[in-house]
């Protein structure tokens, strides 16, 4: 049975696309059949983060409008053969995405994959509501920062009211993914702690992703962090989050980048 997951946040720039790529790749690396779907029509970026930007021919809008068949638009990852990408359109208007079209495409994807991971655009408009429409579960990506927490709260409200599941009186499973977390700053009282965010949003924790150079490096190279730097702290956190999505129970640890004294003093990792 396929599971549809929306990766959402309300606020932009918190790490939705990065997390979609990393979680999708992590699940595929755990032998699951995965497709990551970019819903950010007009501002697509998942192709870039996945390193597939030069292979896009057809996109979600083409499939929604019947100009291309789904298999023509799906891009198979070159590194992991159980991972595919359905890119968004870069040139079309977001209004080209219709509710009926999305319903049909998600239905077709459900037949081909175990996991359908939808990368939501920022905001609470049509693109975001369509991305969450058919979700069985949601990954709410949040930074330990006031505006991100507020927007996540809003999105949680929408997941409970605007999704197909909610309209049937069912619940979308919601998971909190705390990204760009700096354990040292949180310990010093300069940043909201994990417990603070959990208490405020009151949804279960999927994982804590540290603020990490590896994550930026991964996007620079077009390789999800779980593929490009599988031994990094961030990748390990994503691997564990993926296992939790599969229903495993693992204790969440607060990840910390290992830093030398010099690195701590000068705010960057020492050259090993």
């Amino acid at each position: 049975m396929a599971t549809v997951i929306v990766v959402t946040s309300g606020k932009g720039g918190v790490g939705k696309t990065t997390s979609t790529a990393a979680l999708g790749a992590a699940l595929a690396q755990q032998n699951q059949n995965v497709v990551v779907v970019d819903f950010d029509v007009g501002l697509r970026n998942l192709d870039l983060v996945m390193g597939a930007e030069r292979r896009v021919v057809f996109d979600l809008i083409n499939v929604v409008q019947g100009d291309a068949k789904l298999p023509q638009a799906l891009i198979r990852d070159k590194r992991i053969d159980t991972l595919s990408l359905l890119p968004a359109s870069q040139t079309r208007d977001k209004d080209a995405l219709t509710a009926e079209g999305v319903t049909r495409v998600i239905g077709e994807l459900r037949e081909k994959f175990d996991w359908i991971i939808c990368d939501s655009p920022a905001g609470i408009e049509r693109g975001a509501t369509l991305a969450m429409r058919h979700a069985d579960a949601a990954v709410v990506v949040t930074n330990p920062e006031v505006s991100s927490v507020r927007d996540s709260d809003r999105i949680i409200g929408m997941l409970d009211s605007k999704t197909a599941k909610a309209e049937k009186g069912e619940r979308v499973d919601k998971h909190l993914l705390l990204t760009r977390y700096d354990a040292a700053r949180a310990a010093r009282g300069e940043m909201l702690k994990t417990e603070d965010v959990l208490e405020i949003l009151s949804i279960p924790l999927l994982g804590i992703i540290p603020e990490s150079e590896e994550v930026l490096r991964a996007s620079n190279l077009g390789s999800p962090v779980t593929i490009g730097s599988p031994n990094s702290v961030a990748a390990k956190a994503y691997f564990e989050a993926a296992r939790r999505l599969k229903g495993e129970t693992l204790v969440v640890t607060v990840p910390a980048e290992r830093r030398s004294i010099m690195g701590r003093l000068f705010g960057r990792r020492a050259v090993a």
Partner: protein
Amino acid sequence: MNLMSLFRRRDSAPVARERLQVLLAHERAFVGKSDLLAVLQEEIISVIAKHVTIERERVQIKLDRGDPISILEIDVEVPSAAAAAALRETRAAMAGG
């Protein structure tokens, strides 16, 4: 910033947490009712207008969100009897013309 301010600086995370808790308590209560104040204003005006003559512009509604209580402030200017009569005449004239 001098050296002393480094020691005096209060942790900001607890402030963030408190502000969020107060704010979200309200936003959750009012979700989907974003124009609650506009609706309240209309209904309050119509109730008062049944009994006394008032000008719409002279009704102010404010909501001050706080913890543990919020204050809903309703400020209605009720004109004197003479002013009210004049107002009724103007309205009648406008309705007639």
